[in-house]
């Protein structure tokens, strides 16, 4: 009855070794993973030429379930590994999956620099406002005054706006979606993959087990519904005042510009010299 199965995501899973997955029941990460798969499927990429790279965290567990070239690296370093993968074999579509701790705390430097270089990599941030895997410590996106296991009296630090940071670091495609808006999310991810240059998609996801528990935000379902309430599409947001936007967040494509992309720029140097090489047998120090 294989024909019967029409959930396209299943084509891309590694069911034997890895399922059921490690995530808590209702965790938004799985929904985001589905959106990613559908984006790749839509683009009809050769799965042998797709590489998914992650660091450490609940979100970072995504690659193991996916039947691509997958790389589960060290905490925070996924983007730096991904840069090597891309340069080692520029034909690959390289996609990084990361959590807010992984990408923005320990991995923040690699994030801003990779954005700066505008290398053709797509980076997906699963932002659940907390360190899920280690048990609910605060992250650089935990909002001011919210609770975390290491902020027992409320967060006293300010938080990042990851998309803002991406833009001013140099990312040339930036979008935000939620797991509630799962089909829009697929579209944003596929735009990001198609974009030539560093593209970034922030996905608002629920971690009810840690963030939800510590902040009494209820079940997975409740947290996902909260996303619906607070999300404002880009077009609507354009007409709203800052006060009206207070406590909301904007979803959709936030930013797209075109600047020289790193791999192609570097290729120009290579091409120059391989031409010269042909004409000039003995290589010269220039």
């Amino acid at each position, binding site marked *: 009855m294989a024909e*019967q199965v029409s*959930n396209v995501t299943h084509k891309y899973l590694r069911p034997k070794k890895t399922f059921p997955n490690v995530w808590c029941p209702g965790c938004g990460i799985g*929904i985001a993973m589905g959106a990613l798969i559908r984006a790749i499927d839509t683009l009809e990429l050769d799965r042998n030429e797709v590489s998914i790279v992650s660091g450490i965290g609940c979100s970072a567990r995504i690659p193991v379930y996916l039947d691509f070239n997958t790389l589960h690296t060290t905490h925070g370093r996924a983007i730096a590994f991904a840069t090597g993968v891309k340069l080692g074999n520029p034909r690959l579509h390289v996609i990084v999956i990361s959590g807010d701790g992984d990408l923005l705390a320990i991995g923040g430097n690699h994030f801003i620099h990779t954005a700066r270089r505008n290398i053709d990599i797509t980076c997906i941030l699963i932002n659940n406002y907390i360190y899920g895997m280690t048990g609910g410590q605060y992250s650089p996106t935990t909002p001011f005054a919210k609770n975390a296991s290491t902020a027992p009296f409320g967060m006293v630090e300010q938080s990042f706006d990851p998309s803002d940071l991406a833009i001013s670091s140099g990312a040339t495609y930036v979008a935000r979606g939620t797991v509630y808006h*799962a*089909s829009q999310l697929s579209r944003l991810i596929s735009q990001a993959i198609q974009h030539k240059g560093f593209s970034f998609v922030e996905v608002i996801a629920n971690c009810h087990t840690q963030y939800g528990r510590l902040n009494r935000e209820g079940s997975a379902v409740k947290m*996902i519904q909260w996303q619906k309430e607070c999300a404002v599409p880009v077009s609507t947001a354009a007409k709203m005042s800052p006060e009206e936007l207070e406590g909301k967040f904007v979803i959709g494509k936030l930013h797209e510009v075109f600047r020289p992309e790193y791999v192609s720029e570097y290729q120009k140097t290579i091409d120059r010299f391989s031409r010269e090489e042909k004409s000039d047998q003995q290589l010269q120090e220039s």
Partner: protein
Amino acid sequence: MADAEEVEIKKKKWKRRPDPVVIYKKWCKTCNICIEMCPKNVFDTDRDGYPVVSRGLDCTQCTICWMHCPEFAITSNEK
């Protein structure tokens, strides 16, 4: 009358087929997301908390449930 007819057709259609969506219990973690998000209220829960298709006829194959199942435990039967 047209409505009634449609329902008839649907019924026939579904009679020949199993449920519009299938839940793979081995992967399902009973998070309830499909149940709560289904716009047509297709699901109920069994006593262990697993979703069961109770009103399959109402399903519009809107994709919402399987797109939001974090466990990849829902499969559409509509090809």
